[in-house]
């Protein structure tokens, strides 16, 4: 058996181990590779910077724990940015399993890091069922869709909600999304009717689709995957999980590129040998 044939018939578990090592080793030996800021992330940062102080930012937690490694760092970074600018944060979600993630982020960042007060500076309405239909109604009448917050308090008893009646109240809507319902529904059902600033943070697998909406102005910003989250962490100068993960990402990508090149080279050489 030639070397080429041996490599072609390589036990795939060896590849699994090398990929695992590529992800694990940078955790113990950080390389601190540079993270450049891309335009879509910078645009979102600039929109939040330019909002008047006290603006309301709606953050929709449209992901579940499987999307947390990519979207939690983005959510936390955006919350840090908003609270540092004294904006108010309105949290809701189209995914039932995202509720604890939103609560944890608000408690850690809002109450923990910035001493913000619930009901005054931020509010959490948890899971809003209904997907697209809920969004159509949300823009028209927020109180009709969000009747109780995540703790069971009636919307009329929450001080922050007195000035939030319809889509006009939101300076920015940000969908942290990993699927359906998510950013698609926000763009097609909410933004198409009520306009305003809409941005999204996506898991990497969904990000390419949303660049077209940036070009048309339907989105004012886009955080794509862990890389985008790492960029935002750099912008707010608070390094977290995404920045740590980018070393692993880079090494794993280099390894996979090497595998692709190697696989193709061996394929062509084998083909040539047989001919």
């Amino acid at each position: 058996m030639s070397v080429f044939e041996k490599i072609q018939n390589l036990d795939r578990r060896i590849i699994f181990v090398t990929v695992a090592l590529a992800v694990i080793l940078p955790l113990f030996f950080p390389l601190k590779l540079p993270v450049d800021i891309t335009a879509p992330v910078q645009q979102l940062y600039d929109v939040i910077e330019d909002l008047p102080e006290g603006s309301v930012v709606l953050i929709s937690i449209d992901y579940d724990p499987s999307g947390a490694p990519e979207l939690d760092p983005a959510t936390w970074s955006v919350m840090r940015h908003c609270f540092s600018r004294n904006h108010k944060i309105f949290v809701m979600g189209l995914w039932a399993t995202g509720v604890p993630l939103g609560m944890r982020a608000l408690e850690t960042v809002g109450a923990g890091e910035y001493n913000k007060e619930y009901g005054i500076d931020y509010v959490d309405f948890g899971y809003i069922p209904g997907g697209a239909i809920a969004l159509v109604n949300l823009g028209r009448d927020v109180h009709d869709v969000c009747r109780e917050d995540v703790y069971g308090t009636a919307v009329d008893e929450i001080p922050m909600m007195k000035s939030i009646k319809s889509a006009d109240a939101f300076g920015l809507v940000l969908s942290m999304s990993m699927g359906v319902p998510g950013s698609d529904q926000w763009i097609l059902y909410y933004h198409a009717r009520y306009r305003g600033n809409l941005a999204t943070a996506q898991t990497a697998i969904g990000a390419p689709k949303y660049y077209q909406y940036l070009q048309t102005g339907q989105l004012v910003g886009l955080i794509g995957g862990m890389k985008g989250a790492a960029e935002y962490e750099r912008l707010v100068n608070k390094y977290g999980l995404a920045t740590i993960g980018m070393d692993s990402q880079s090494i794993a990508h280099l390894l996979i590129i090497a595998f692709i090149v190697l696989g193709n080279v061996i394929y062509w050489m084998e083909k040539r040998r047989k001919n």
Partner: protein
Amino acid sequence: MTSGVWVWIAGALTLAIYSFLYKDNPFYKVAEYIFVGLSAGYWAVYLFWNFAYPNLFQPLFSEGNYWNIIPLALGFMMFTQLSRRSAWLVRFPLTFVLGVSLGLQLIAAVEGDVVPQLAGTFEPFSRGALFNTYDFWTSIGYIVLLVGVLSTLVYFFFSREHKGVFGGIARTGVFYLMIAFGASFGYTVMARVSLLFGRVHFIFHDWLHIIR
């Protein structure tokens, strides 16, 4: 202490799931069945108390909103297909769902996708904006975009054989498609590595406390 126990359970289940990469085994099976069972139970309870109860049962039985009898009846009709004799009744809720979905999606697709995307593609070419309003490289980008849109559309036009000039344009479309697939693949790799990183970080940071 309680959260510590859950971290250990989560860590053990993570390893059980990844053990499948070596080969199928009982640990993986147990973790898989736990996941499927928990998900089904969680969703059933969560959707009842967060969707059906506050939107249907509470307004109907506690607040006397008798209009909710209509969705309740439509909901029950979905189960009529379990019997052959009453299966025809399922057409009513399905027709309702299809009608609402079609009405909503038609408007959304036109207002949110077709019109803005067409405008975004062709607007830079109107009123001499190219190379005037937009800088050189942005203008080149818009030309590349327009060529990509048109050639990809030509590729998907199957009523004429892809030969000659038409075939050449279609082949250009294929190049654009390949670049799009490549970008998607790259992002997919990033997403999968992120998932792996999330679990690895959990194991070494939250569970074993080996890294800070």
